[in-house]
């Protein structure tokens, strides 16, 4: 227990402190704090917590002091008394420290004044109560109101104190956003709406009239121009020697770097904007749109001004009934909360066949909650806008390709939050759409493919500057190359005559073609019509033409006649395993291999490729054509020699033809080529042996050495 003379000492000290505070308040203006005392003052934000806790505890005890049960508790009373005393003492000491601190540079303004007066009231009130609380007239009523008054003073002083150290609205900032003023780009001023907000968000918490750190405030033009104790903030036009930019560009570890380490830093965009603003002579009057369109500051500023409009949306309406949402949801009407726990709903309607006005009317139970409505391609009529106007919280409305004419568009004016309206592909009435300005909240409207002429849209844009009118793509009339005709034939090897099937995906396109190897043109070449029959080996070159387009690239296709099909076919020497296709019959399946030699339709070998065929009935054979591949880079060459042997049976074969294609050259192109072997004599043939010989020694220019070349064959035509 504290002995009573200690108590007496403490009481005296409390008295002294009170007197000192009164003195300080009365004569504070002239007081100068010596430097060695400053650290004591700076302890104020630390020590402050002690009296707060002790005093609040004491007040709680005091509040219940006159309770029946506690009235006689000695310990309770003694404890309360000492707590009172300690609390008041510390409050006094802390207040004095605070007064010291307030004398330092950088503390000024209304917030400080409020903090000061409520702070010292805590000292005075608690001291006063301490002295009165053992008097006879001190009743429960007085005790309670005194306790409440002290706590109130504490709270208010604490609040203002926190504002000074942490900045305004520190506690509620994460949950409460004061409504941001939306500045459309065409109305925005460079300083007021771009530069100043940067100061506001990142600098002002320490550089304001209440707390002018470094003697600097950044609240208006005057204070910005004034600069701080280290001098002017900037030299217009010379960012590299401007203090402001030097400080923000210092490495973050540096002591003088701004904002100080640990505080929210400037983003790259913000730094750039400050730099460019100073570079462009730190103008205070210019509007953003006064800058040239390609000006860097304008570009960044335009971006900077945008996000303020796209703040996270807050919805203040009630959540719809879950069961109702479930009931309204079906295969063609999707209703979903936009986020977990959000009351806002999105609604998408699908399937125009099942769409009826009642699809929307049935949503009346959730009309408050719907924030986005997608009616893309639904046959929505003008009359239904009345129902839609009932969705009072609607933000986005998609009416693309609906039957809206715009006649009732002013119905939507009651939608206070509608931001995006899509009307692409509708047949809008140019007169009706002029009422669009009635929807005050509108930010964006899509008008592509609505038949509205450009100049009408320009007029609308002029009349409604806050709305972004999206015109979308417009054919500028510059011709473009049309794509080539498509060959619809699936078989290119025929026994009986077949029809040439060409087509083009774009309607009204003319296809012209040649069969003589010359390039087709738009005047002389034949026009393709269905019903053209191919009876012999034919090389088709075709080209597409359409007014307003350049002619297409040439499409080439070859047709091969193969009159005879052997009744059996086999390899005498096996081809390479990887390229053996579906066996020897791959060579007579009338299915060409195309350009991909690894697709199983090509037969290949690095040795002589020997094929043997038999006909049940002798055939009158004139030509044997081997369809071969040449692909120089991969050692695939045309055969160096082809021999065709034939006769009545296997034992009486005679050499009927030998063909030696020209030697390969280094830059021979990739080609698929039919090599014709004309047979020397016409005779009835029952057996046929064909030998295709690959190049044994690769040409000198080929990078690969010491291996033979490849022979690739996909089909043999017999005529």
């Amino acid at each position: 227990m504290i002995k009573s003379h200690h108590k007496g000492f403490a009481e005296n000290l409390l008295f002294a402190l009170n007197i000192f505070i009164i003195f300080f308040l009365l004569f504070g203006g002239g007081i100068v704090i010596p430097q060695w005392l400053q650290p004591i003052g700076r302890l104020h934000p630390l020590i402050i917590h002690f009296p707060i806790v002790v005093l609040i505890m004491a007040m709680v005890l005091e509040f219940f002091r006159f309770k029946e049960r506690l009235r006689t508790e000695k310990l309770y009373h003694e404890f309360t008394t000492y707590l009172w005393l300690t609390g008041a003492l510390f409050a006094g000491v802390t207040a004095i420290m605070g007064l010291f601190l307030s004398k330092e540079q950088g503390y000024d303004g209304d917030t400080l004044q409020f903090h000061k007066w409520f702070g010292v009231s805590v000292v005075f009130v608690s001291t006063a109560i301490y002295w009165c609380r053992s008097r006879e007239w001190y009743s429960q009523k007085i005790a309670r109101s005194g306790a409440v008054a002290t706590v109130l003073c504490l709270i208010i002083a604490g609040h203002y104190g926190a504002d000074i150290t942490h900045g305004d609205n520190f506690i509620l900032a994460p949950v409460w956003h004061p409504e941001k003023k939306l500045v459309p780009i065409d109305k925005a001023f460079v300083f007021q709406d771009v530069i100043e907000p940067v100061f506001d968000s990142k600098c002002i918490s320490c550089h304001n009239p209440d707390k002018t750190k470094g003697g600097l405030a950044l609240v208006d033009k005057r204070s910005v121009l004034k600069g701080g104790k280290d001098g002017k903030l900037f030299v217009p036009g010379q960012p590299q020697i401007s203090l402001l930019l030097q400080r923000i560009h210092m490495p973050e570890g540096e002591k003088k770097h701004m904002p100080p380490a640990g505080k929210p830093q400037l983003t790259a965009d913000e730094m750039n904007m400050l730099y460019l603003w100073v570079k462009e002579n730190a103008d205070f009057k210019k509007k953003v749109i006064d800058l040239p369109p390609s000006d860097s500051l304008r570009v960044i500023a335009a971006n900077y001004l945008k996000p303020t409009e796209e703040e996270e949306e807050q919805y203040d309406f009630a959540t719809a009934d879950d069961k109702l949402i479930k009931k309204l949801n079906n295969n063609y009407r999707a209703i979903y909360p936009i986020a977990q726990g959000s009351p806002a709903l999105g609604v998408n309607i699908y399937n125009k066949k099942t769409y009826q006005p009642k699809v929307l009317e049935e949503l009346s139970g959730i009309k408050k909650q719907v924030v986005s409505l997608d009616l893309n391609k639904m046959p929505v009529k003008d009359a239904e806008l009345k129902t839609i106007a009932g969705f009072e919280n609607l933000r986005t409305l998609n009416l693309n390709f609906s039957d809206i004419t715009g006649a009732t568009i002013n119905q939507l004016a009651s939608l206070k939050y509608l931001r995006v309206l899509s009307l692409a592909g509708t047949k809008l009435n140019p007169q009706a759409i002029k009422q669009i300005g009635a929807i005050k909240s509108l930010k964006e409207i899509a008008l592509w493919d609505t038949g509205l002429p450009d100049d009408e849209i320009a007029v609308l844009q002029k009349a409604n500057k806050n709305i972004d009118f999206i015109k979308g793509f417009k054919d500028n009339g510059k011709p473009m190359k049309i794509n080539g005709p498509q060959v619809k034939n699936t078989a290119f090897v025929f026994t009986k005559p077949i029809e040439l099937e060409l087509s083009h995906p774009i309607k009204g396109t003319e296809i012209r073609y040649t069969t003589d190897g010359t390039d087709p043109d738009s005047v002389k070449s034949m026009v393709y019509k269905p019903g053209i029959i191919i009876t012999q080996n034919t090389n088709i070159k075709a080209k597409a033409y359409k007014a307003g387009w350049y002619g297409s690239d040439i499409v080439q296709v070859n047709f091969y006649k193969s009159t005879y099909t052997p009744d059996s076919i086999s390899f005498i020497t096996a081809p390479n395993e990887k390229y053996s296709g579906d066996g020897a019959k791959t060579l007579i399946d009338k299915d060409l291999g195309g350009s991909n030699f690894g697709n199983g339709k090509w037969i290949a070998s690095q040795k002589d490729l020997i094929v043997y065929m038999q006909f049940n009935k002798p055939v009158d054979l004139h030509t044997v054509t081997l369809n071969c591949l040449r692909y120089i880079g991969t050692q695939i060459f045309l055969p160096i020699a082809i021999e065709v042997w034939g006769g009545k049976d296997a034992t009486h074969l005679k050499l009927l033809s030998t063909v030696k294609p020209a030697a390969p050259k280094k830059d021979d192109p990739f080609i698929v080529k039919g090599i014709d072997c004309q047979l020397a004599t016409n005779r009835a043939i029952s057996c046929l042996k064909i030998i295709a010989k690959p190049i044994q020694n690769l040409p000198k220019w080929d990078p690969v050495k010491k291996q033979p070349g490849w022979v690739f064959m996909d089909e043999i035509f017999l005529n």
Partner: protein
Amino acid sequence: MEKDFLEHRLNINRRRFLSRLSLGLGSVALGSLLIPDLFSGIGSDSEADFIPGIPNFAPKAKRVIYLFQDGAPSQLESFDYKPKLREMMGQELPPSVRGSQILTGMTAQQKSFPLVGSFYDFKQYGESKAWISDLFPHIGSIADDICIIKSMYTEAINHDPALTFFQTGAQQGNRPSMGSWVSYGLGSENKNLPAFTVLLSKGKGNGQGVYSKLWSNGFLDSIHQGVQFSSGENPVLYLNDQDGIDRRDRRKMLDKIAELNEISYKQFGDPEITTKIQQYEMAYRMQSAVPEIMDVSKEPDDIVKMYGPDCLVPGTYAANCLLARKLSENGVRFVQLYHQGWDQHNNLPQEMAGQAKDVDQASAALVTDLKQRGLLDETLVIWGGEFGRTNYSQGKLEKANYGRDHHPRCFSVWMAGGGIKPGLVYGESDEFGYNIVKDPVHVHDFHATILNQLGIDHKKLTFKSQGRRYRLTDVAGNVVKGILV
């Protein structure tokens, strides 16, 4: 007596124990207030440890269209302008720039690494002044609508692992594809179409394969698997009724099968059975929804000029872009395109020109088309390959003919819409286009960002399989805040 004492002491202890317990419980309850997900079921050990169909926060993008350029287009001939490489044409890649980078087997044996600048010139486009090569004039024309990221990097150096990494967040390929994760997390918007669809096309350039594992559902429910739309007569395989079966018969058959499936579900409780029922039902509804989507004959003439005439030729990239728009517009969450043929180890100038011609106009048209329908805000379009290409030539360097090998350390992709900052060029590479010098974006970061735009916290979208909870971003990934609106 002693017994009474003992009992009393026990009672005291009991009382103390109980009061302590209540105090303890009170503090636990208080503490729990600070752990948001403690009682919500998320992150608990229960089987359903995520509630599908609900985003974590309000999404910027509702849907994604991913234009995957398969084979890895060169960043140095597209979006990363490096005049220095032209100046230093033919000179050796300084070892200090290459650092410890491991090369592929294709160039590791090369004795020389001659730097090679772009064969194609670059121009600045739009207000954003983004440098884009002459191969992509149409993409240049939408420079102010897109965000080019020049600082992507990946971990894999070969096609398959790199592609698998981009699609599934892991190189090995047993994980769900990104589209499957999105389908699992957000569900389908339109119940008449799958949430995740895949479209393939192929250019003339040197190609690399795409395989169905890239759009596999992995360990997720099979309803989240990507559904491939092909270009033939039957865009979705097995969707059409067989000859001789009409819609009513089909309906009856489905009802009967569903009854049988219900019975077997009651018996075994396998969730795949209910999935099967749902899939049959969706396929039935798709029978009417798909033909309408595939029908491009009603598209206005402007659309044909915009996407290029090839958009009417099924199976082309342009046609797939148009189809992607139609699918997306109809509520398909994730449309994945692959265009093959970007693997230019040699003959780059010529091959890349062909590839660029395939994709340039249609890619740009897709963005413009979404915009003019008011849909770009809610649709995220992504364009890019699985890695970049080296700044030195693979094989012999000739003026108009060179190749580039794989380069995972630094490459470019672009995004548009869906809450991504338009008209932005993000990240920087060094003057050799070899290393990133500013704002690197890892594949995991890229995934985290995409999910974020869809309203999904990438750390919360998990699925427990074989004793471990998996995420698309594995155990990494940061949302790239710098590119968000």
